[in-house]
């Protein structure tokens, strides 16, 4: 026993040493390259909004020399910009952003100088005086997708009608083609064919295991706390890994560093309080948000229907400027969800019937330090975080299935600015503890507590060989010392902007060691068990995305994108025909293919319409014995229950005389479900059973899996809101609207055993009030 432990330890140490050697080569090379770039200068810094100290992404910063030559850069999510390898001399530095006054300053750069210049942008005021001008492109745009990557800003989210006056990120996500939601309850998203557990969700670098609330309109991310959200529907770069399908990388806002502001909202689904302000004016800020559902007191009474759901979240972020060249933030979030979705197929729901209950709780705390070393053209980021998920399912107070997952993570990401090349690289180390009690489901899953250590690094230079062309090849090394397994994952991203056209492609290979298990045959059971991938069967995906975007005028954008995802060794539940599931998991292979087309008309100023159509096909292939017996085929191909073939979304936002009118219509073709041939009492005749005495077990008889299609899904949501100024800095917003305006009976799920139909929410009128101190 001791020798086996020692040998494992030796193996892990050997692994770590080898990895350390390979990772150290990168900085050594970069120091050499940086040294070779002597006799040039660099200017860099952070761009913030002067009114509140918030970082401003997307600000164009450029230098003009005496001959009129331009050198430029755009600020990133942190407001960081950097222009390097420029000749010493005198320049005019300008920074511009629509709706803000242009920043202008003359600077002189010496040879080898790394000058830090932070820029404060001031909002320009119109002749109307009191009305703040909002940036014409404050939204990132629904059609603004580049090789699977779409950036979302709070203004985008506010275009979607929502049941709450404070908009939520998930409400916007479900309006995007290629993203299939489980419905208005359940809190699960399927992105371009992937399962919810194959999505990596990060908030300020912290992993959130199950971030979507039990009511499908809400997530842990109200738009009030979001700075930007980058959604990679596939083809993501070397910085991200450990998930097969997608990455949702959210950056939270920082609090107002100038003054205290806040808001409180009341609506039929949730009530919210947000507070932000300077802890140390100009230096340290706090942003805190608290939301609590009031569905049972609000929406449930409005529609006179039992809606047994409860959820809430608490968020806080402290952000500090540590001098001119460094910033530190500490973020914490806790979410809670509780609800009753499951129906016992063998119990008739009488007045005393108590359905099973699912509840989960996320907790994440993390720190992020970004700094600009004084003598290197480098942007550095250090992240430390702890994430935790507790999930339970079963009778209230006596759950039969539980899972706990914890993750400690450290990572470091660096970007070296070497002329027109940005050299990105990083290292990461994480340790997970996974502990599940599956109460009978997934019999062949090891129930021991599992510890998984993961170490690795990536390199991802970003070349700009000609104007408008960016080529970003990457390589990620992912190692699991305890298993003696390593994976090299190549990545590639190419973007070519030429005039009004943009061509893009992305691809890569991905592995997922920590995987989530669901029994997808029962839509009411959203319990997810987190476990290590079965030994020797690491789930793997290969992505390929190609896209085209054209913006012929500033009021029209059109984009088209195709994708292919090949999936290997994904885990699916084994087929069984009994109402009370006891099953095994089985490996399956599959693929997802599709395309989406988007068109955006107008701008967020007055009128904006987005039309999108997504088409996809997801196919799994399994060689499980149970399916072979059922179908008589060696390999059984089927469409999993999230295979929505077509999706159409139409969103319109209109601003007239201070009123915001938002409409959204969603349409989706029916999801697959299992058609039944009928029910019988099954006798296992594995011995001389007396058939005139033994009653047998209830059984559902299936044909091939998922051959049926549920009815189409469509819904119209409408909202109207207006902000009233009731004091110098106090505003009252009133929102009214209606969800599911024509009262479509959209199916949430069909319980095949009882043929009970569970519908999504009917027509719901909403009325929300927000009091905001700006």
């Amino acid at each position, binding site marked *: 026993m001791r020798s086996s432990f020692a040998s494992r330890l030796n193996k892990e140490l050997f692994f770590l040493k080898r990895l350390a050697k390979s990772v150290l080569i990168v900085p050594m090379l970069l120091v050499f390259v940086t040294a070779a770039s002597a006799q040039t200068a660099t200017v860099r810094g952070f761009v913030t909004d002067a009114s509140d100290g918030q970082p401003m992404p997307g600000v164009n910063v450029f230098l003009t020399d005496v001959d009129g030559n331009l050198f430029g850069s755009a600020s990133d999510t942190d407001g960081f910009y950097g222009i390097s390898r420029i000749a010493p001399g005198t320049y005019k530095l300008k920074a511009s952003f629509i709706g803000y006054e242009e920043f202008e300053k003359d600077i002189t750069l010496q040879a080898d100088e790394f000058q830090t210049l932070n820029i404060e942008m001031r909002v320009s005021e119109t002749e109307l005086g009191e009305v703040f001008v909002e940036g014409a492109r404050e939204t990132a745009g629904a059609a603004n997708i580049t090789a699977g990557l779409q950036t979302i800003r709070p203004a985008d989210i506010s275009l979607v009608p929502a049941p709450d006056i404070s908009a939520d990120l998930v409400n916007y996500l479900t309006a995007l083609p290629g993203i299939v939601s489980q419905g208005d309850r359940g809190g699960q998203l399927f992105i371009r064919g992937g399962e919810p557990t194959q999505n990596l969700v990060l908030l300020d670098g912290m992993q959130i295991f199950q971030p979507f609330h039990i009511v499908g309109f809400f997530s842990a991310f109200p738009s009030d706390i979001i700075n930007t959200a980058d959604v990679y529907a596939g083809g993501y770069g070397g910085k991200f890994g450990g998930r097969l399908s997608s990455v949702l990388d959210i950056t939270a806002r920082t609090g107002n560093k100038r003054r205290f502001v806040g808001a409180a909202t009341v609506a039929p689904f949730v009530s919210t309080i947000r507070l932000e302000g300077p802890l140390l004016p100009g230096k340290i800020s706090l942003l805190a948000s608290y939301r609590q559902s009031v569905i049972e007191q609000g929406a449930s009474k409005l529609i006179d229907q039992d809606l047994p759901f409860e959820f809430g979240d608490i968020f806080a972020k402290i952000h500090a400027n540590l001098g001119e060249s460094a910033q530190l933030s500490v973020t914490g979030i806790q979410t809670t969800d509780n609800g009753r979705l499951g129906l016992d*197929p*063998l119990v*008739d729901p009488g007045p005393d019937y108590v359905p099973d209950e699912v509840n989960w709780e996320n907790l994440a705390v993390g720190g992020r330090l970004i700094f600009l070393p004084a003598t290197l053209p480098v942007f550095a980021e250090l992240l430390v975080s702890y994430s935790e998920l507790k999930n339970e399912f079963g009778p209230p107070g006596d759950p039969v299935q539980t899972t706990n997952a914890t993750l400690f993570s450290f990572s470091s990401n660096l970007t070296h600015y070497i002329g027109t090349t940005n050299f990105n690289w990083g290292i990461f180390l994480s340790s997970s503890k996974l502990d599940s009690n599956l109460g009978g489901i997934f019999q062949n899953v090891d129930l021991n507590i599992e510890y998984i250590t993961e170490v690795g690094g990536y390199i991802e230079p970003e070349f700009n060989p000609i104007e408008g062309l960016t080529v970003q090849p990457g390589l990620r090394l992912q190692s699991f010392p305890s298993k003696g397994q390593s994976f090299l994952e190549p990545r590639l991203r190419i973007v070519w902007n030429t005039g009004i056209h943009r061509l893009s492609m992305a691809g890569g290979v991905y592995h997922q060691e920590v995987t989530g298990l669901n029994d997808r045959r029962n839509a009411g059971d959203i319990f997810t068990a987190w476990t290590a991938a079965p030994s020797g069967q690491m789930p793997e995906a290969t992505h390929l995305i190609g896209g085209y975007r054209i913006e012929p005028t500033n009021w029209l954008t059109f984009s088209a994108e195709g994708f292919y995802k090949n999936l290997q060794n994904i885990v699916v539940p084994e087929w069984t025909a009994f*109402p009370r599931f006891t099953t095994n998991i089985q490996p399956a292979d599959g693929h997802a293919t599709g395309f989406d087309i988007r068109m955006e008309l107008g701008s967020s100023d007055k009128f904006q319409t987005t039309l999108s159509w997504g088409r996809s096909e997801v196919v799994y292939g399994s060689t499980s014995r149970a399916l072979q*017996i059922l179908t*008589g085929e060696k390999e059984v191909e089927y469409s999993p229950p999230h295979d929505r073939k077509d999706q*159409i979304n139409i969103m319109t936002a209109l601003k007239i005389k201070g009123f915001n009118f938002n409409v959204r219509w969603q*349409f989706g*073709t029916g999801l697959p*479900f299992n*058609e*039944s*041939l*009928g*029910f*019988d*009492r*099954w*006798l*296992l*005749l*594995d011995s*001389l059973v007396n*058939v*005139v*005495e*033994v*009653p*047998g077990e*209830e059984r*559902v*008889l299936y*044909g091939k899996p998922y*051959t*049926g299609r*549920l*009815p*189409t899904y*469509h819904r119209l949501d409408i909202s109207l809101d207006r902000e009233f100024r009731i004091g110098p800095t106090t505003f009252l917003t009133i929102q009214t609207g209606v969800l599911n305006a024509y009262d*479509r*009976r959209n*199916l949430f799920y*069909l319980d*095949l*055993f*009882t*043929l009970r*139909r569970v519908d999504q929410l009917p027509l719901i009128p909403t009325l929300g009030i927000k009091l905001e101190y700006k």
Partner: protein
Amino acid sequence: MRKIHRHHTGVLITFLFSVLLLGCDNTIEPIDDSGSEAFAIHGYLDMRVARQVVRIEALRPNVLSNPISLEDVQVSTIESESGLFQIWKDSTVILNSGEPGFVFAANFRPELGRTYRLIVSRNGESGSEAIAKLPAKPPTFVNPPVGDSLNIKQRIVLQGMTEKPIQITLSYVVVPADDSGERTIRIAYGQPGVATSSGWEFDVDLVTDRIIILNQLGLNVTVKDVEFRSVSFEMTVFSDEWKEPQKEANLDNAHGFFGSVGVFEHAWFIDSGFLNTLGFVDGQKRN
């Protein structure tokens, strides 16, 4: 130009109309009832008994619905080799759970190696079918006895048989010296043996069996004047369907299980020298 415009308008109207039509449909058809009515069949033909029974159930649309009446349902069998047709009679039984169960029964004893087609239909319409082929007797080889007076065994090999038998019973016919007449002693062996490349192999333990025989005759083990007339074994075996009871390969438009149980015998002679060593008087009648 106007034609093209009209054409596009037509396409758009058709598309919107299709979406509207598709979108309005809100029905779900959870039951695939495209084929003829299927039944659940659970049971097996059993050579050991003269009355055959199967349980029949009409498939229900959901798990909570009441059993569907089988009043108009007919169950029959045809023996493929002879064409013998039999109608089965229905009856209701009370299961261990207290619920009713619907069974059909017929009085006949199936035969080894024969094939029986069970037909279940309602009002003469096409319904469910199941085929059960009774196992055939495998070629059987008896090896010469081996061992000394304390341990004499004889290996039996059933060629090609791979599955464990349900039951093996040895039958000895002996005549005690007191002239009380011929006695048959049956010894249950259970499920002895192993599957080998040759087939199923098991040993007959002649020394132990002799002690059991003498005990049953009420004689002392030292008695050596009992006449040994014959030895045989009877083996009860499952048909192939029992290898994977969930496979349903022999069912057509039916669900459940329909198999068979076969019984066969094999007799052999034991060398006189070994009988003497065992303590029997050889009375076997050889032709």
